[in-house]
Structures are given as structure tokens and as C-alpha cells.
């Protein structure tokens, strides 16, 4: 029963968002049923629709998990966007420096790599770089909060802009190939590539970009579950989030938990770099993130900050994203920006839980559960 109640609320929020979105579509002059039909139809075709949906889901599973872990500690990590940028750059940097790539940057002087490692060594190192660098970038606001009481929402927003600036500097001035008009680094070493799912799953064409990072995202969901509910650290993080004063009184070092939760959160957001750099573009591409960090907030909220919920919420938003593409092409007035609108409305509804508790509470449908 408790499980059903947990499920009921997100479903109501999504349905309500679709209704409001449908009204917007209708006001703009299109048929909402046709537009939604187009979206779902496109997202659920095999193999292209589903392949792309899983590909789009991968980054927002990571950022959704990131936001969820911080939430469980009572922290709001608005900084996943910055964390994934620095981490993705670090992934590319390791795969260039240790992947045997000579970079001829702006200066025109070729910079030799440090090593040319085989894939078995290079891929784990690149993934580790994503986790560590993302973790450090997330841990800094955690530390600022624990040590100085600086609010993590503001510091993470600021760190986002700092991340974008720093990474774009390193890309433009040091790791972009000479004469390349696009803001991107040189291509990473081929041994760092991770395979697309199509290369070993029969029936799935290899042209679809969904790659091993999607499997990593599933593993990450499981790891986060075990971490939060089966380890001492996870217990202490949740205790801190539930009631910091009680946790402190119970002998938990609340400040350390804050730093830990933010670092874990940043590390998870950093894994976006694996999908992006090792699995897809094979280089760091400046400003590649399609608001993944902010979508992660929607995903975490809709998924009730639980890994399973995050996984399905990410799939839903990924379907919308994939479904938005034909909307651009085939509907007269509506553009794929509808996806952003739906996402915003979903968050508003999920945040305004009391709205539904008031309406549905009267019928005993949504009682406040003890989470």
C-alpha cells in the first residue's frame, strides 16, 4: 500500500503536467492528442526510438542519482551541470594524455602525450577521473557549507559558471586542435572508446549511440541503493537529511556527511562524462550538456529520490526528449521546446505536493506517508 501511495503521487503530477501542456499546445493552435501521439510513437519505435530514448536517459540517470543522494542528506545540488562539465573534460584529458594523442593547440607547438595505454587500463582511469573530478567539484560546495555555512544552492550555482569558464578556457587555449573552428578538444585515443550496445546486442543497429555507459547507469542505480540503504555511511547521510540536530546528537559527524554526500553527488554527475566523451563524441565538446544537471532535479524529484524511481523518471523524460524531435518537423506550431515546458510543469507540480494532498486527500487517496 505504501508503495502504491508513493507511486500515485508522481503519476498524478505527470498526468497533470501533460494536461496543462496539452492546453498550451491547444492554445498555440495544434491538436494535443496528435502531438503527444507523435511523441510517444517516435519514442517507442524499435530500434531507433528506443535506442535513442535509452541514450538520452543515460546522462539524466546519472544527474538524477546525483541530485537524489544530495537530497537524502537534505542538500539541494543545483551544481550537477558544473560537476559534469569539469568531469567530462577530465575524462577527455586523461584519454588524450594517456591515450597517446599528440595535441597541436593554439600555439602550434605539438604537445606529446605521457603514455599510450591499452583500453583495459585507460578506460578505468578515464572513468575514475570523471568520478574524482566531479566529486571534488561537488565536494567544494559541501566543504564551504560544512566549514563556513555558505548555502550550497548559491555556491553550486556559482561553481557552475566557474566550471563552464575554466573548461572553455582549457579547451580553447590548450586542447583544441590548431585550426579547428569548433570549440572542442582534440579526439581522444581510440583505446579509450567504449563500445556501443549495438556492437554486441543482436538486432540493435550499431549506428545508435546508446553505449556501455547506459549499463553503467543501471549499475550506478544499484550501487546508490546499496550505498544509501545498506552501508553505515548511507545511513548517516539519510539520518543527517532527516534531522541534522538529532543526527548530531546521535553521534554522527554531520559536517563530514555533508561533504561526503556532496562529493558522492558530484562523482555521480561526473559519470555523464563517460557517456559523452568515451561513448559518444570521443572528445570534449564545449557546452555539450543539454541542461542535464537541471533535468536531474526533475528526475530526482519525480523519482522520489529513490534509484528505481530515478531510473523510470529518467526514461520518461528521455522519451519526451526523443519524442520532441518529430514534433519539430511535423507539427505546424509546436516545437520541441514543449519538452522543456513539460519538464518545468512536472517540477512545479511535484514541488507543490500540498496542491494534490488538498484535492485528493479528501478522498483518502494521498495520505502523507512517513518517509
Amino acid at each position, binding site marked *: 500500500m505504501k508503495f502504491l501511495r508513493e507511486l500515485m503521487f508522481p503519476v498524478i503530477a505527470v498526468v497533470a503536467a501533460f494536461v496543462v501542456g496539452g492546453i498550451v499546445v491547444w492554445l498555440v493552435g495544434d491538436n494535443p492528442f496528435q502531438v503527444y501521439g507523435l511523441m510517444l510513437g517516435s519514442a517507442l519505435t524499435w530500434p531507433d526510438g528506443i535506442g535513442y530514448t535509452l541514450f538520452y536517459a543515460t546522462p539524466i540517470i546519472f544527474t538524477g542519482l546525483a541530485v537524489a543522494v544530495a537530497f537524502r542528506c537534505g542538500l539541494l545540488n543545483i551544481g550537477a551541470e558544473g560537476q559534469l562539465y569539469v568531469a567530462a573534460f577530465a575524462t577527455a584529458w586523461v584519454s588524450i594524455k594517456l591515450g597517446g594523442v599528440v595535441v597541436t593547440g593554439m600555439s602550434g607547438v605539438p604537445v606529446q602525450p605521457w603514455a599510450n595505454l591499452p583500453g583495459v587500463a585507460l578506460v578505468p582511469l578515464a572513468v575514475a577521473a570523471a568520478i574524482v573530478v566531479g566529486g571534488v567539484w561537488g565536494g567544494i560546495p559541501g566543504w564551504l557549507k560544512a566549514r*563556513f555555512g555558505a548555502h550550497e544552492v548559491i555556491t553550486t*550555482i556559482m561553481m557552475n559558471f566557474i566550471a563552464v569558464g575554466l573548461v572553455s578556457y582549457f579547451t580553447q587555449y590548450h586542447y583544441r586542435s590548431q585550426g579547428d573552428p569548433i570549440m572542442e578538444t582534440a579526439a581522444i585515443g581510440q583505446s579509450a572508446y567504449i563500445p556501443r550496445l549495438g556492437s554486441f546486442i543482436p538486432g540493435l543497429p550499431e549506428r545508435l549511440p546508446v553505449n556501455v555507459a547506459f549499463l553503467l547507469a543501471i549499475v550506478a542505480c544499484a550501487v546508490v541503493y546499496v550505498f544509501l540503504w545498506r552501508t553505515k555511511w548511507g545511513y548517516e547521510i539519510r539520518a543527517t537529511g532527516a534531522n541534522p540536530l538529532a543526527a548530531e546528537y546521535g553521534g554522527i559527524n554531520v559536517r563530514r556527511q555533508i561533504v561526503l554526500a556532496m562529493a558522492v553527488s558530484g562523482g555521480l554527475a561526473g559519470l555523464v562524462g563517460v557517456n559523452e566523451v568515451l561513448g559518444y563524441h570521443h572528445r570534449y565538446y564545449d557546452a555539450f550538456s543539454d541542461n542535464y544537471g537541471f533535468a536531474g532535479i526533475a528526475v530526482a*524529484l519525480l523519482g522520489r529520490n529513490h534509484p528505481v524511481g530515478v531510473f523510470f523518471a529518467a526514461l520518461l523524460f528521455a522519451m519526451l526528449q526523443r519524442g520532441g524531435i518529430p514534433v519539430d518537423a511535423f507539427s505546424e506550431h509546436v516545437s520541441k*521546446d*514543449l519538452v*522543456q515546458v513539460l519538464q518545468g510543469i512536472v*517540477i*512545479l507540480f511535484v*514541488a507543490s505536493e500540498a496542491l494534490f494532498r488538498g484535492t485528493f486527500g479528501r478522498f483518502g487517496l494521498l495520505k502523507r506517508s512517513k518517509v
Partner: protein
Amino acid sequence: MNQIFTVNLLFSSIRLATPLILAALGGMFSERSGVINIALEGLMLAGAFTAASITYYAGSPWVGLFAAIIAGAAIAMLHAVACIRFKADQVVSGTAINILLTGIPALLSGAFFLSSGSTPQIPEGHLIPYTPVVIAFALVPVTWYALNRTPFGLRLRAVGENPEAADAAGVSVPLMRYTGVLLSGALAGIGGAYLSIGQSSLFTRNMTSGRGFIALAALIFGKWRPVQTMLACLLFGFTEAIAIQLQGVRFGGEEIPNQFIQIIPYVLTIVVLAGFIGQSRAPRALGIPYQKER
């Protein structure tokens, strides 16, 4: 060096500070009443888009400016209802507004102007390049006076610092907070309008490019006080002006990366928040929904 530090730099700093001042003063009304407003970015986008499209249709920037004020306040109303009526997490609600407003202008301009990238060009005679600047700087003393010397300001601050006491004294906490948030929408709307029908002549996708967040940073840097916040906005406007001026300028053959100049406001804000340069103290009840005792 002399080519860079000119009167032009001063003017361009003032121009660049204007939208920041408008949005930051707006944010001040909201935050001093106890409602976090990270939705400034979205509110500015609402103002910018509305101003550009209404000016295009009506042929008058004043109608456009007025519409931008209404649009900003209307979107702020969403934030207010979620935060005050339904006690939503204020940061989450603000984030939702920001995401919503990256979509809505593009969706509407796609539907009405058949281009989701931008609105049509507005003729030069229909632009207001100076008025919003005057409004912004005039609003600084007005805001100071309103906050510190009027019963309204006292109530607003009381609700943000100690809602229980304000409530006991007969002040309506929700009413003051709705007022604060709506004012923030109206002012951020003017700030956005200045971007589209003041500095430029059309709305382009995501044209605020983080200015709402810089305004928020300035608000914190200025310790939630009008004059200090204006100075912070001028400082941040100045760094942006420098970054623009230095583009492509070489010192001894080396190009100066303007990324380093662009991140200065953000680094400064973190430094201030951490208390390295004076403590910045938020209103005490900031971010806490008010629940009346039963």
C-alpha cells in the same frame, strides 16, 4: 592600457549593470520577505520575450515594457503560489520556473513568428535604450526608502526575519510575501525588457545567458541591501565590460583569456558567502514556508 580604460568603458559598465540592478532589486523584495528567488533568470526571460513580441505587434515600446512587467509578475505569481500557498521548496520551484521559461518563449515564438530561435526585428525608433537605465538607478534610493523608512518596508522585513512575531502583530505574512515576490517579477521583467528592446532589438533564445544568476550573486554580494547591491551590480557590469573590451586584445603577443574575467563575479560571491570578506547574512526566515500556529 589607455585604449581600454576610457569613458566608453564607464558607459558600457553602466549599461551592462542596468539589467542586473533591476533584477537584483526585484530579488531583494522577494528575499527580504523570506522567499528565495532563484527564478530571476526565468522572470527576466519572460520580460525580455514579452517586451520584444508585444512591442513588435503594438508598435510602441511603452506597451511592450508594460506587458513585460505584467508577464514578469504573472510568472512570479506561479512561484509565489507554489511557495506560499502550497509550501513548495522555494529553490525547486525557482528551478522549475527557470526550466519552464527556457521552453515557453521558444515555443511561443515558434508558434507566432514561425521561428523558435528569435522574434522579428523591431525598428530602431521603437526601442528604449535609456529609460530603463534611469528607472534602474532611480529605483535604488526608492527601494532603500521603501524598505527602511515606510511601514510597508518594516512589515516586509519583519515577515522575512521573524514571521511569527509579525503575524502576532497583525501583519499578514502571506500578503507581504505575495507582494514581495510579485514585485520581484515586475522588476525582473523590466530588466529583461531592457535586454530585448533596450540593448538589442529582438528576443533571442536564452538571451539572458545567466544574468539572472549574476543578479542573484550581486544581491548576496551586496548583503541584501539596495546601495551595496547596486555597487555589486556595477562591479559585475564592469567585469563584463572589461571582458568584452579585452576580446582579441593582445599583451606582448599573448591573448588574454576572457574566461578568467567572466568568472570573477562568481568567485567573488563564493568568497563573500564563505565569509572571507565580511559576512553576508541572509534574512533569518529566508526559504522557510510560514505555517500559522493552530
